[in-house]
């Protein structure tokens, strides 16, 4: 397709009514009022010099490079790419308040999960218990620093950074403000996302329980219950499409995580 005659279809697979979509055309159709016209033209010129599109009325599918006009989504809706079927954008069922509550609960659970043992084994009057940190320390001291590092990064640092980071960002976003260190934090959260492995660890503990129940008296600690609960919260909070926050400062007052600001 040639660039000159390119047109941008609206037919991403989502159900939005016409009026909602039209709202997003404002950026292209200059208002008749002369003063506003001048302001917008100046804004566009400024954006053009910065090679920016004013507040991104466009959306590019990161999986196949397809370009769309940004659809307006209602709660719980998501848009999918017509070319490759990847999710383009999602608007959460939970609004900012709900998400922030999730992130706070997750951070607290995280402290509990790491303060109590995940598992303890008993045999003939002896009892051995370990926390997640104890497990990493043991592996480090036993000559396996790589495994210890993988454990600490994927089960401690990354999940906690995500929970606490989301909480911090949302705490400011709810007041319609950008959090201090917003850019750095958003970039870090996006980059570390694939490295959170809490759910794998929970399954691993289940395997360890089955493995040892024939020989030992197995007692799951408070830590693993907290981790199991954390898995659910982390899945909800981490699936949040935080990218909407990038546009949020263009809105008045508390915004929504739908990324469709104009």
């Amino acid at each position, binding site marked *: *397709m*040639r*660039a000159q005659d390119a*047109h*941008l279809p609206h*037919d991403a697979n989502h159900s939005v009514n016409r009026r909602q979509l039209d709202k997003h055309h404002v950026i292209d159709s200059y208002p008749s009022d002369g003063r506003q016209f001048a302001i917008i033209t100046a804004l566009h010129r400024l954006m053009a010099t*910065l090679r*920016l*599109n004013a507040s991104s009325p*466009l*959306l*590019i*599918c*990161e*999986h*196949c*490079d*397809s*370009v*769309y006009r940004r659809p307006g989504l209602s709660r719980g809706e998501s848009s999918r790419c017509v*070319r*490759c*079927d990847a999710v383009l954008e999602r608007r959460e069922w939970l609004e900012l308040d709900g998400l922030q509550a999730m992130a706070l609960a997750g951070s607290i659970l995280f402290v509990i999960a790491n303060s109590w043992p*995940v*598992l*303890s*084994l008993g045999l003939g009057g002896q009892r051995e*218990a*370990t926390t997640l940190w104890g*497990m*990493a320390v043991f*592996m480090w001291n*036993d000559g*396996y620093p*790589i*495994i210890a590092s*993988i454990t600490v990064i*994927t*089960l401690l640092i990354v999940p906690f950074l995500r929970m606490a980071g989301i909480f911090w960002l949302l705490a400011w976003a709810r007041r319609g403000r950008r959090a201090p260190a917003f*850019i750095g934090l958003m*970039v870090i959260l*996006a*980059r570390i996302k*694939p*490295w959170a*492995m809490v759910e*794998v*660890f929970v*399954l*691993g*503990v289940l*395997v*360890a329980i*089955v*493995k*040892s129940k024939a*020989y030992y008296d197995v007692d799951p600690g408070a830590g693993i219950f907290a981790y199991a609960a954390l898995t659910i919260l982390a899945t909800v909070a981490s699936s949040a499409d935080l*990218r909407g926050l*990038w546009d949020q400062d263009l809105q008045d007052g508390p915004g929504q995580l739908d*990324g469709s600001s104009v």
Partner: protein
Amino acid sequence: MNVPPRAIDLGLVGCHVCGMVCRHKGSDVGLACPRCGSALHQRRHHAYAITWALLIAAAILFIPANLVPIMNTASLYGSYDNTIIGGVVEFWHNKEYDIAVVIFVASIVVPTLKFIALGLLLITSKRGARRGRRQRAKLYRGVELIGYWSMLDVFVVALMSALVHFGLLGSAAPRPGVIYFGLVVVLTMFAAMSFDPRLIWDGDSDDD
């Protein structure tokens, strides 16, 4: 169906971190997103070479990961070095079929599928194959989704080794196989990340 245009044809680049859409033509070397500062790529540089390198390295490490024991367990009955497949067989013999299947899938099937899937994606994309592009795009997202579950056995070994210290009655200790295995998972995850799924759709025609 109305096929949407592609960013590279329109002279646009999308930021993978923040979603910003930028106008840009020409070389994208050293280009940074004006909003979040992340590197902008029309296509990830050297995606084929880097992904192949990581994938082959992971495939090589996968051999010792399976041959070298991952854990040693000792009790009054003797001392045993366990490999991954040995653990699966043991569970199977003890009639713990569900756990045997879980470990087998996470430790053997998932990594193997990742090697095959990524290899297939690399070869077909390089050739500009047109068939099944949508399916291959889904395959790539599937690889990203299941990849980290292979870490299961690594966590089990770390947990058991930290817990089972009952002297002569029973003890467990890690063995070097677990390092190879952990590295296989990390390398395949990096391989999946360095592949650029947009390459699946590059080719002489946009029609699927």
